[in-house]
């Protein structure tokens, strides 16, 4: 019921910016936009629809591209905005000006998937150690962890 009203409002307010909108389950809406329209869409969602709570940002490695999902929530619905960015130029704008609480999630994206978040207020690494080798992004599908062979002191060479 509520979902339908929200979808209608999205179609009215965002028009041709919507690439795809889906409502797979009650209280779940997935909206796909181009990365250039991301900030506008989020500001529409926040200012006109009152979605102030960002639950988290998920990044998915799809192979030739990365998919970024912004999970918003209010008292009635969980609203996910998704966007895709190409693997050879993985950059997207920071949403911290609109949602200050997004900072930790954006830093996590930079660390784990190697995305380039532009205009991020605090670009330091968050989760990985300071001496982590550059260019290693653990959540990319092509990153494999190989456990080094165990060396027993005094054992056979």
């Amino acid at each position, binding site marked *: 019921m509520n979902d339908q009203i929200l979808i209608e409002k999205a179609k009215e307010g965002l028009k041709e910016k919507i690439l795809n909108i889906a409502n*797979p*389950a009650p*209280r*779940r809406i997935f909206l796909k936009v181009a990365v250039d329209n991301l900030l506008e869409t989020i500001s529409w969602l926040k200012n006109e629809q009152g979605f*102030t*709570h*960002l*639950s*988290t940002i*998920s*990044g*998915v*490695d799809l192979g030739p591209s990365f998919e970024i*999902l912004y*999970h918003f*929530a*209010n*008292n*009635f*619905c*969980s609203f*996910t905005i998704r966007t895709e960015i190409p693997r050879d130029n993985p950059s997207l704008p920071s949403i911290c000006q609109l*949602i*200050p*609480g*997004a*900072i*930790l*999630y954006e830093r996590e994206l930079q660390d*784990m998937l190697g995305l380039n978040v532009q205009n991020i207020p605090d670009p330091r*690494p*968050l*989760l*990985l*150690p*300071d*001496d*982590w*080798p550059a260019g*290693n992004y*653990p*959540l990319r599908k092509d990153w494999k*962890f190989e*456990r*080094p062979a165990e*060396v027993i*002191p005094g054992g056979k060479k």
Partner: protein
Amino acid sequence: MNFQIPIGPQHPALKEPIGLRITVDGEIIREADLRLGYNHRGIEKLAESKTWIQNIYLMERICGICSHSHTTCYVQGVEKLMEIQAPKRGLYIRTLVAELERIHSHLLWLGVAGHEAGFDSFFMYVWRDREIVMDILEIISGNRVHYAINTIGGVRRDLDELQVKNILDSLSVLRKRSEYYLNLGTTEPSFVARLAGVGYLSKEDALALCAVGPTLRASGVPMDVRKDDPYAVYDEVPFEVCTADTGDVLGRTVVRIKELFQSYNIIEYLLKNLPTGPIAVRAPRRPKSNEVVSRYEAPRGENIHYIKSNGTEKPERLKVRAPTLGNYAATIKMLKNGFIADVPLIFAAIDPCICCAERAVAIVDARTGQEKIVSTSSLKQLKQNVSPNKERKREVVWPL
């Protein structure tokens, strides 16, 4: 003059490892910074290499206190992906364990709050009573910490009449004791004086910084996933969302004690209306290619899992956001302009459940206030410089 003080990752005032760096002007905190990662275990990457069933046990081990939160959030997402519906009795038992877990977590927190406020007899009283709820959990599942009660399609253990009676008896003891704590926690003058006004977070800031759970509700925002986005059987159980409008540590205490009473009511309702029937249905081995957003109200706040399947036996992506991460940005705000002595109290007030912190060593020159961050590899270098000619038995090699 400003000084920087590193607190943690290992520090007597913190119960779990986290790296905090605060800049102080006299006794007052001007700036606070957080460094996570000390305890990072790479669970999201690991989950991609395990099957759907194996991942239940992996999710259980994300946290020792809210172990049921993560498995429930995960299995209810996977149930949607597999297009199966857990039977009613299974959902009732799942909700029952969830509420028992909330009680034990809130009692644990209440004790820690008493301890951090210097009220150690309160801490010991509360933790003694927490044993009652731990015993109930042991009766139901056989375990005190990792209940392992969830499975895809329902739960693994049933309840019998005697267990129901035992739980209800123990619950009446707990309820009586909690009334005493509510009275004590809100009227004992020195305890209230220690908590009131500490770690203030306004409603606007709580919303802007995306705080969750009791931290958000203590700032007067009635957001609770159980009410907003009912999962399991919360749409048929009567309960209220507890809020406070003071926005300080006292408010967070009051919200948690009030939630205890709501949990007692929920458990009584669940046990008195427990339906008969099977507790689980058979689940397929692999779901279709799909995605799902699963939300759950853990004792610390909203827990969200984003699960994507690709038609195989293993998930394509499993994103976990535990409630504590959602509260960190707000904690930084609370610490600013507070006193150094309030750091453990404010930090404890979000009920941190730390899976992540720092891996660096900070060296602060007290005279100039200049700070140098030294990584583990340069520390090793430093060690070699100190005794360059000594023979070493073996070299420690960085795995990458």
